[in-house]
């Protein structure tokens, strides 16, 4: 019997992929380029992501037993499906690289005086190698086990911030107009589009009661909370937001009134290490899945090793420098990630009637 991923597990995977990377560096980067209104753009981008997720849900409900690749194959044929899967593979690989380098910089800054790159890399790569080779439902269980801890950590951080936030710091809203910052914001598309990990769970997920409503409501709540977190960061640190590059732990560390909790902020750092590790593992699985769909199911072992080695090489190329990684992502990858994030779902939505037509054609052919 095929072991399916439950609705709860899917939700937690989506939440981890939504939250993990965004609440570290992004607030500081956006504060630098856009200013205190950045949370509005984050909210809009996340809402766009949400609509794309709805398209995926629509496709999933129509074909609950088909894998994502099978859907693509039915719509566009084998060749285009493979090209699209390869594009997704590159997107996931990019995300892995982002998580890998971010986690290193986060630990180096907060927990270690000088963390050697090999001390960081080899254990994590060996363990992710093991996890990526697990069945999808085993990874889902792993996420289900740790995700509540991550969510509690995020909520504690948010609540501590809310207690001290002065939201009047955010006023006046959109001082420089709405469209002025949009072009800058597009360049940060790398940080979004996390709903795409859903493709791994097509045909692998158990459809339970009120599946669509539960998933969409929970994700919507998560999106609002993330936007609220951004708003809180900007209102707490106001003009200093730029210097707080690790916002999730900075809230606990920096506020004077939370000094008692602040001395234990390393607990939150560990929780976020956990979140980033899960994020990395989820995307490695995504990369592995899309690669396998592109090139067939042979050489699984080699594929996983190759993906991890590529991530390591990419990290070494940028010398584990997060600043360099961000500037590269902003310069070269934003168009690619933007087109993957919004292009694929819109294309799928437009071509979704094709599945029915193809099915009908197949039926007629079989009858003949």
């Amino acid at each position, binding site marked *: 019997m095929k072991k399916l991923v*439950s609705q709860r597990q899917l939700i937690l995977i989506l939440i981890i992929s939504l939250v993990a990377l965004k609440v570290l560096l992004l607030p500081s980067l956006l504060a630098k380029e856009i200013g205190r209104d950045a949370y509005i753009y984050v909210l809009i981008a996340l809402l766009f992501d949400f609509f794309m997720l709805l398209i995926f849900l629509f496709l999933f409900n129509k074909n609950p037993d088909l894998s994502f690749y099978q859907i693509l194959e039915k719509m566009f044929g084998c060749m285009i499906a493979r090209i699209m899967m390869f594009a997704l593979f590159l997107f996931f690989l990019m995300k892995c690289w982002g998580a890998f380098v971010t986690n290193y910089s986060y630990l180096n800054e907060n927990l270690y005086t000088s963390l050697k790159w090999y001390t960081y890399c080899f254990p994590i790569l060996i363990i992710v190698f093991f*996890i990526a080779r697990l069945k999808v439902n085993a990874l*889902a269980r792993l996420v289900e086990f740790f995700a509540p801890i991550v969510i509690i950590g995020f909520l504690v951080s948010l609540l501590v911030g809310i207690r001290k936030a002065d939201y009047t710091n955010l006023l006046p809203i959109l001082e420089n107009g709405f469209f002025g910052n949009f072009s800058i914001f597009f360049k940060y598309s790398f940080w979004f589009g996390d709903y795409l990990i859903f493709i791994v769970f097509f045909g692998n997920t158990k459809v339970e009661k009120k599946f669509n409503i539960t998933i969409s409501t929970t994700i919507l709540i998560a999106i609002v909370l993330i936007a609220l977190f951004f708003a809180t960061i900007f209102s707490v640190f106001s003009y200093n937001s730029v210097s707080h590059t690790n916002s999730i732990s900075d809230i606990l560390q920096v506020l004077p009134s939370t000094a008692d909790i602040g001395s234990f902020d*390393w607990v939150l750092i*560990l929780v976020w290490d956990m979140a980033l590790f899960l994020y990395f593992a989820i995307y490695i699985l995504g990369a592995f899945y899309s690669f396998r769909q592109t090139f067939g199911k042979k050489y699984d072992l080699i594929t996983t090793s190759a993906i991890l080695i590529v991530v390591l090489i990419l990290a070494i190329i940028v010398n584990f420098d997060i600043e360099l990684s961000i500037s590269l992502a902003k310069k070269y990858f934003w168009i690619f990630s933007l087109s993957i994030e919004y292009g694929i779902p819109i294309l799928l939505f437009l071509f979704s009637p094709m599945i029915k037509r193809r099915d009908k054609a197949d039926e007629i052919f079989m009858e003949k």
Partner: protein
Amino acid sequence: MIVPFFISIIKNIYPHTNFMSNKNLSVEKKSKEILSSLQNNSDVIAKYFFIAKTPACLIFVDEIVKQDEISLNIINPLNNFVGDKKKIDLDSILNKNVSLCNASLILEDEILIKILKGYAVLLVENCEGAIAFNVVGYEQRSVEEPPSSTVISGPREGFTESIKTNIGLIRKRLVSKKLKIEDCELGERTKTAIKLVYFDDLVDSDIVAQIKKRISRVKIDGVIDSYYIGTILENKPNSIFRQVGNCEKPDIACSKILEGRVAILVDGSPIVLTVPFVLIEDFQSSNDYYSESHRSSMLRVLRIIALIMSIYFPAMFIALQLYHYKVLPLKFLVTIIDTTQNLPLNPFLEVFFIIILFDILFEASIRMPKYLGIAVSIVGALILGDTAVKAGLVSPPGVMIVAMSAITIYIIPNQSSQISILRFIFAFIGGTLGFHGIIIGSMFLVAYLCNFDCFGTPYFAPYSPFVKSDQKDAFIKENIFEMRNMPQSFPNQKERRFSIENKKRGNKK
């Protein structure tokens, strides 16, 4: 090739006919053959006598039978034989002359096994086959409270090494016609009896079939304890984590059978195995079910804290000192620096030294005679520990951390061996990689355990995967009346355990 084939066909048609035996073999010859097959051992007794002038022989192993019962219920009645004295056959002996109800006719090839199992076997001249009398009389322990499952309230009976007594203890509690007890045997030299006990209408039939399949495919010389069967049933026998539940008390075994699990009893072992098994079972104590639910829930949470402390405390202590001292609160940091600054060993070696010292003391106190064991623990705990601190070999925080970790291991006795190994591994990871290592080590551990699937049951159920209805008896325990559903974490046939009619609030069933 052809002759054995025909013999096997005829044997199937006439199962009680032994075609290869010589019917005219005299009792004396037969008994000598049996004795020589049993290596002419001195404890195998062959007692020759006459049943109304017909020679007969009773063979048994001296040490494992009840001698009184033999003379009273077998030999005495046969000396005063009732019936046709010219034509003596086994049926007339069995039905008219012997008062023992545990007696049966057996085939020639069963004789040796029956003798070795403690039966007295009666051979009669010119009679094919034999009569086996169950006069088994091993020395056995009485029913006592098991040392590792003591309770403050609730039943105190524990299983013994006798499978018969253990079945009796279960039968006493489960008075149901649907209780099924299936027999198997394993071990070419031990012929150990194994019994599968379950409710036919509760248990998933695939689980029973799988258990039987796994047991039947093993050819082993001997089964001494239920641990052997546990290993056979495990999906990953090389793992340090056990995948089969065990218990020493009939009340626990019965409650697991009632939940739709299978209990496996092995002759000679007081440990009863239960499958399917989930990790949460080790956090549940029988005392939890005989005390208030709030108290039980609190104790379960304490057990989890104890588990975390025992695995992570030494590792965190090392990691904090070696890599992350800046995250420690200042006062705490000053205390640690004060006590550790002149130590000859670094924190990593210091903690390892204390852990190893503790484990040696623990092993010594178990193996030594009881009176010496107490002396060893006094020497170890008071003299060695204290002197080591005073001599400046180890620091007081180090001793305290390892001592706390060592004590907390035994809060979950069934997991103690796994935890002590994990404590070593995590201490090593903490010393080499720091907190990041501990986190990814934990991830690896959980990922590894998430991949366990014993008899269709996820190891971390009902938490991962989350099973809502089973949360009532997980880390938080609810009132027994709230646990109306059968566990959903593992496959079983029934949904509801019980219902309450005419409940005052809302007449819910």
